[in-house]
């Protein structure tokens, strides 16, 4: 801390004080309030705290928290890391993360999509990690074409090295403006937001997958040096060497997050062999993918906040005999508008025992009825488990897919499981 100007030191100390007070009084983890108070004292605090550190910013619509965790675990191979692992991904959270770890020479900061340009300018980040952009909570978030444009402008004005997913046209278009880039073939399951060329609006030619190009202006998928084969669970590095991932985190979305983490670690000079054992240790991230055992049944929690996230969650569901609970709310953090339910294809759930709950379960009920998926209405996870134990005593597992506040409610009911 000694390198910080006096005012910044004071600001950081006040912020830490407020954060511990917030924790002590059980109000939260203190990441936001601490940063907010510190910023009042020193508006340039983020820039001051970031100075001299090699910061990586991680942004995307989906997978930010998990990928931030993967990257920070990987970079601990080098030394101490400052990171906002609780997911407070706006500047107040970044300030808290950096001021809590004054000795860390490296910062890995999950960054809200909208704040990325500002945080990039203020932190002078050396690495910017970009994974995907898709429709998300549109009653309060920006339109994603506009977001990509702002990313592009901010990257063009920076010295950052971008590590980006070449398979997402919007992300690639933004990343192409950066002075240096590592392109990763990280895959894209949800394609409904990228049929149009981000440069000229032409209808993209998207075959053979994952290749894409615009027949009108010629924009095309950048040449990749890292690639991922989901079928064989294998990553190929820039030297052509293959590595099996063997993660504990499930599904293709996490393989995609992992190949991005490997490419980011390489930008910090680490080889996949050094990093992979660290990635394999991670079982759950802030409650995501956690399993809890209650009433003798293993309940796995999956968080899905938007159509692309739901698609990824369906892909990691257990075999059809495992029932699934869907829970949807529409509070402010979820987006007040449930229209997105109609962008998700639920037909994959046909033939499975499905329960709907949450504050907007009627919306879910109509949605499932329309897709001809049988379902039952429930009030809580416990109620479902009681019903299952009575009716299907051989059931040992249940998956739960929920959106943000519904997820937090269920998590809280089981003691804020990590």
């Amino acid at each position, binding site marked *: 801390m000694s390198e910080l100007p006096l005012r910044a030191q004071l600001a950081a100390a006040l912020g830490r004080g407020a954060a511990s007070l917030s924790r002590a009084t059980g109000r939260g983890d203190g990441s936001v309030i601490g940063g907010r108070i510190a910023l009042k004292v020193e508006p340039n605090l983020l820039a001051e705290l970031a100075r001299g550190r090699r910061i990586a910013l991680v942004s995307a619509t989906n997978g930010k928290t998990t990928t931030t965790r993967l990257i920070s675990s990987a970079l601990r191979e080098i030394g101490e890391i400052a990171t906002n692992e609780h997911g407070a991904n706006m500047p107040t959270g970044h300030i808290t993360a950096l001021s809590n770890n004054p000795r860390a020479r490296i910062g890995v900061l999950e960054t809200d999509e909208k704040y990325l340009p500002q945080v990039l300018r203020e932190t002078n980040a050396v690495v910017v990690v970009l994974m995907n952009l898709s*429709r998300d909570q*549109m*009653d*309060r978030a920006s*339109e*994603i*074409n*506009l977001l990509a444009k702002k990313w592009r402008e901010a990257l063009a004005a920076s010295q950052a090295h971008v590590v980006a997913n070449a398979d997402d046209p919007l992300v690639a278009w933004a990343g192409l403006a950066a002075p240096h880039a590592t392109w990763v073939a990280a895959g894209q399951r949800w394609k*409904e937001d990228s*049929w*149009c060329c981000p440069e000229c*609006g*032409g*209808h993209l030619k998207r075959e053979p997958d994952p290749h894409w190009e615009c027949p009108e202006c010629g924009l095309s998928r950048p040449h990749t040096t890292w690639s991922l084969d989901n079928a064989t669970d294998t990553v190929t590095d820039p030297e052509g060497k293959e590595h099996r991932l063997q993660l504990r985190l499930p599904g293709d979305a996490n393989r995609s997050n992992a190949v991005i983490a490997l490419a980011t670690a390489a930008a910090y000079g680490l080889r996949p062999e050094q990093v992979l054992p660290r990635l394999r240790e991670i079982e759950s991230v802030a409650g995501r993918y956690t399993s809890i055992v209650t009433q003798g049944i293993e309940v796995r929690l999956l968080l899905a906040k938007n159509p692309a996230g739901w698609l990824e969650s369906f892909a990691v569901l257990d075999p059809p005999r495992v029932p699934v609970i869907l829970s949807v709310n529409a509070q402010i953090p979820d987006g*007040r*508008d*449930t*229209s*997105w*339910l*109609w*962008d998700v294809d639920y037909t994959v759930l046909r033939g499975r025992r499905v329960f709907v709950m949450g504050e907007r379960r*009627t*919306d879910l*009920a*109509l*949605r499932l*009825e*329309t*897709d001809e998926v049988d379902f039952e209405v429930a009030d809580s996870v416990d109620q479902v488990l009681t019903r299952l134990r009575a009716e299907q005593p051989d059931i040992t597992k249940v998956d739960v897919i929920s959106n943000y506040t519904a997820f937090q409610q269920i998590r809280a009911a089981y003691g804020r499981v990590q």
Partner: protein
Amino acid sequence: MSDTSSTLRIVWIYPDLLSTYGDRGNVLILRRRAELRGIPTEVVHVHSSDPVPAEGDIYLLGGGEDRPQILAAQRLRADGGLKRAAERGAAVFAVCAGYQIIGETYGDDAANPLPGVGILDVRSSRGPSRAVGEIVADVDPALGVGRITGFENHQGRTEIGPSAKPLSTAVRGIGNDGVTEGAYQGQVLGTYLHGPALPRNPALADLLLRWRVGDIPPLPPSWGERLHEERLAAVL
């Protein structure tokens, strides 16, 4: 239905440009409510690089961001298929950005309007503030639809010309101008109720079906009616 077949053809215009948030719901619910009554359906997705077929029964246009909206309007005007279909008497249901571009003019700047497809006598421009939230409106009694509910998220303000009529009177929310919501002219209908407006208002879906196939038997109440009532109760 179209003269040449007994199948109801639902044409979804430019899902690649105009499908921002749940617009697919309108396609799904029209198909379902037709098929529950034994009416065979065919759904046609028309990409922005393809011609708009002239022989559809119901044409659907969804919402979109500013730039895709401009592209969609340019392409629809150049193509001409939607205008020919509307002149032939096909039903058109357009939402949000789609509603604006089937009008005479639309655009960011009221002083510098962009030309629309011109099948609905409305003019849209950018308003002083964004209208975001639940909306409730009472539909013109001549249409027999009753009260509708939905979610709006737009900055447009829409003025209705002499050839069109307001679709409804706003009870909550902004709609066209804080007073009326949506517009219709013959069998062309536009609304700011974005995304799944038809799933949330089964009577509005049935209006479009009636326009094309005449009398249809009522369906037993289901989750659509439950959701409709639940949202009205939550908002009012």
